[in-house]
Every structure is written in structure tokens, then in C-alpha cells.
């Protein structure tokens, strides 16, 4: 049973701002479908006693003390910007709403 079709890939690509050709969309739909099916197979094997795992290493509570460290110099920061003005990044006109 196919769960990932070309339309779904096109929708995700649009959300992720990835420009795909129709050929790429079709190929990825096939590849991703295989991956999703594989994961589904694993899910069948995993019983309720296996907790969902987001990290391979069983590690928790990696916390930092609330102490101020080194910040980057402004020149270095803005050296990364295609355009800058008044110490800020200048970006093209923003369409749509803030989140």
C-alpha cells in the first residue's frame, strides 16, 4: 500500500521551500514510500513495552548553568549577511504574517 504519493511530496517540498522538478518529485515519492513502509514494519514489531525513542543514547537532563558567555562581534556577524544596514540584517520585503 503506497502512503507517499507525488502530491504529498510536492506539498512537503513546498512547505520546506525545496524546488523539485516533476521527475524528482516522482522519484522521491517512490524512495520515501519504501522508507515509510520500512518504518511501518518496524512499528508492527515494537510492542507497547517499547517506548518511542527520539535519541539513541539513553541520556537526559543535559543542562547548562545560566552564565553569560562570549558573544560574536558585530562585524563578524554582519560579514555573513548579503546585505546589512544599521547593524542589522537587511532582508527582502516580507510577505505574509508573522507567526
Amino acid at each position, binding site marked *: 500500500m503506497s502512503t507517499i504519493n507525488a502530491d504529498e511530496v510536492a506539498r512537503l517540498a513546498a512547505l520546506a521551500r525545496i524546488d523539485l522538478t516533476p521527475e524528482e518529485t516522482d522519484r522521491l515519492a517512490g524512495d520515501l514510500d519504501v522508507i515509510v513502509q520500512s518504518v511501518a514494519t518496524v512499528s508492527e514489531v515494537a510492542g507497547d513495552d517499547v517506548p518511542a525513542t527520539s535519541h539513541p543514547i539513553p541520556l537526559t537532563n543535559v543542562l547548562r*548553568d545560566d552564565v*553569560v558567555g562570549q558573544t560574536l562581534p558585530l562585524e563578524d556577524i554582519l560579514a555573513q549577511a548579503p546585505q546589512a544596514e544599521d547593524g542589522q*540584517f537587511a532582508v527582502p520585503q516580507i510577505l505574509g504574517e508573522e507567526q
Partner: protein
Amino acid sequence: MTTLVDYDDAIARFDPVLGIEVHVELGTATKMFDDAPAHFGAQPNSAVTPVSLGLPGALPVVNGTAVEYAIRIGLALNCQIAETCRFARKNYFYPDVPKNFQTSQYDEPIAFEGYLDVELEDGEVFRVEIERAHMEEDAGKNTHVGGSGRIHGAEYSLVDYNRAGIPLVEIVTKPITGVGARAPEVARAYVSALRDIFRTLGVSEARMERGNVRADVNLSLRATPDAPLGTRTETKNVNSFRSIERAVRYEVSRQAAVLDAGQSVVQETRHFHEDTGSTSSGRVKSDADDYRYFPEPDLVPLAPPREWVEEIRASLPELPALRRRRLVTEWGYSEEEMRDVVNAGALDLIEATVAAGAAPAAARKWWMGELSRTAKTSGVELADLDVTPQHVAELQALVDSGRVNDKLARQVLEGVLAGEGAPEDVVTARGLEVVSDDGPLLEVIDATLAEQPDIAEKIRSGNLGPMGVIIGAVMKATRGQADAGRVRELVQERLS
């Protein structure tokens, strides 16, 4: 849609349901996931690290103090604290989010299933159920250049990432039902109660006007309380208590008009306009709201040890509602006086003044009178004035002992505010003590009576009417340093 249904009419025919999301910026020294200072307002882009900028390879590390603050908030809101929870990526594209995702929490918030009892103006207590409180990070700040300065029509935007990554806790209510006509009041009281709690917990400065606390207000209408929930709108970033009330009122009237016209309310975000008190359509919920949340691979899960949670619980300060109830009894204030004190940010100051020895009524008189006026005139908060509760208590002690009268006390206070030192120092330096030695006072009185023989005669013949003239003249001659009561006695002695 410009026609509105009268608010009372709308409430008579529809049942409003609220839902409120409040974001609070935590007052930590550093950001949520990196050690840049969490201090918005500095020179643009002066408080950023590779993590704040989302540079490739930069790795986040969770701020332990921010977690502690989030747990404090959760406990104060009677929430359960998760035994284990995760961070998640909320994916969307906007220039103020440099990583192209916001690190947040999704299906595993740190705190959940709580409630807050909110006291309304008339003393009625309303319980607001809390669904969750989760940790996330703030975005940077966009300034739109050209055009009108608003988003539409701007030619380009400038981005400052100092705010990007400042720790936030977002508190989400369950649908708040049964509010009826009091919906605006409940919304306001809830956010106001949260603000007080944040301050009491010491987790945020919680200044609405600085955007430390931001509220998104969801509202829907339904025909009757038994009906399923109607379609809601979400009015974003309503940033003052008054605006929260107005936004709710407006949406009730507007949605009632839409429903009356046989149309459906559109599920959308809306913007509140301070100038007109109205809301306007923002973004319709769409495909772009598919944030594709997934667990943040760069951060390991958080499992706050139970001992830590209990330690935090034990260290929680007395919460505002309880404290207010205790103090109103201890101090003998009226409910209204207490509310004014709280709204003026004078509660801590008065408590400290009382602790330093002043009577509660006197402490209130100074902080809510003279000092409030001074603060207002100079546009600063009461707490930022150059006067301490200790000073105010000392000043009142001077009044109580009769060493200065009210008028002199105000001059002493003026000196303290001007940085001339403690009240005692100002009294000495300015020579403001009440003249209590009768000798010099009698000299002045005799001279005054000699200057006004007609009036002296009238008083001598039993007409005490013009007494004020003599006392006034004596007070003037002594530059207010005489005790008016004593002057009256002496004048009567002299003329008897």
C-alpha cells in the same frame, strides 16, 4: 464587516467561550539554548552567538535556570510536572527565526493539567483550567523599512537577533466556558493574575508594555451552553489589560453580527488595533500552518527529578492571591484600596515600609500619594524612585514623634528624592525640624500680634474667627517649622 451587534444583545443570544495563550519572557541571564545574554533592547545583534543565529553546526544546550522557572510557573498554576518531556522543532520560514524552526515543545509539555483561581473585581472567584505550560524560545525582531512601516508596503526589513532565543513559557488554557457577559473581565483578570504570579515567582519582570507578557485571545460563540463549540478566532499579541477586555468585547459583537447574517465565522488570526478598539482579519488557517513538528534531535529529553520538583515546590513564595487576602486583613485596607496598591506596584514597597516600622495606613498614604505623584511626573516606576521603604518608615517616625509636621515631612521627602540622604540627614542639613522651643516661637507670635493690633483685639474680645490669620502669619514667618497647634495655644495664652 463593519456592523456590530450591541454587546449586551450579543451576550443575551450567544454563549461566549474563551481560550487564552500567554507567552512570558523569562528573566534569566542567558538565552534558552545558548549563553548569549537574554537582554533585549541592547545594541542590535550585540547579544548573539552561533546558536542564536542558527549557524550550521551550532548546537543548543538547555538553560537549567529556565527549566527551573518553567517548573515554578507550572507548580504555581497547580499543574503536574512531566516526569519526562522533549523539545520539538516547529518548522516555518520567517526572517526572525534564523534556524527556520522554533525550538518548542509539542506533545510533551513540561507542565500540564492545572488551574488558576482568578478573582474578579467584585470578589467572585472564577476557576480557569490550564491545559499546559511549555518551554520555547522567542524570535528576533523585524523592523519594516519604507512604505508605511507595516508589513504590507514595506520595501525591506531589518532584523535584530538579540531577542532570538530568549526563553519563553507559553501557558494555554482549556476552553473557558460559563463566563457569559463577564468574558472580557475574566480574560483581563486571568492575564493580570498571571502577571502578578510571574513577578512573585521572580521568573520575569513581566512588563506588559515591554512585551514581556503577550496574550493571544481565542473567542468563539455558540447558541447555548449545551451546543458544541463554535468556530474561534485568535486575536494575536494583545498587550495591555485594557486591550484584552476591548478585544474580547469587539469579537463578541463582531462574531454575533457574522452569525446573525447567516454566515460562518472564519477560523483565522486577527489583529487588535489600539486606536479603534477593533480587530481586523490576519491570516487564515492554511497549509502553511502545517508546522511538521518533530522531536528535536539536538536536545536530549528532560526528566526533572522528583526531588528537584519537590524542592522547587517547597521554595515557592506565598502566591499573590493568598498574600493579598492576608495583607488586606492585617493592614485593614478596603478591597478598593488594596486593588489600587497592587495596580500601582506598591504592595512590596508598602509591606517593606510596614516591616520597617510604619503603620500600614501611613505607609499607604506616602506611597500612594506623594510618591505616586512624583513617580508619575517623572515617568518612572515607584520602585525606581530614589527612596527606600526604610526612608519612608523613618520619615513617618519623624512625623509621629512630632519632630516634623506634614508640610515639613514633604520637604524632607523632597530632599531624600533629590539624593540628599536619609530623612534624618535632610532634617539636619536643611534645618527642617519643628520649632518646639516656645521661646523663639513666642518672639515671632509677639511680633505678629504687634503688627496686627486690630486682629489681636478681636481675638482678645473672644472672636476666634481671625485666629487663622495669625497662625498663618506665624507659620509663614517660621517657614512652616512651627507646630500649628502649639501656635494656637500660645496665641490664646498671650491674649487671655
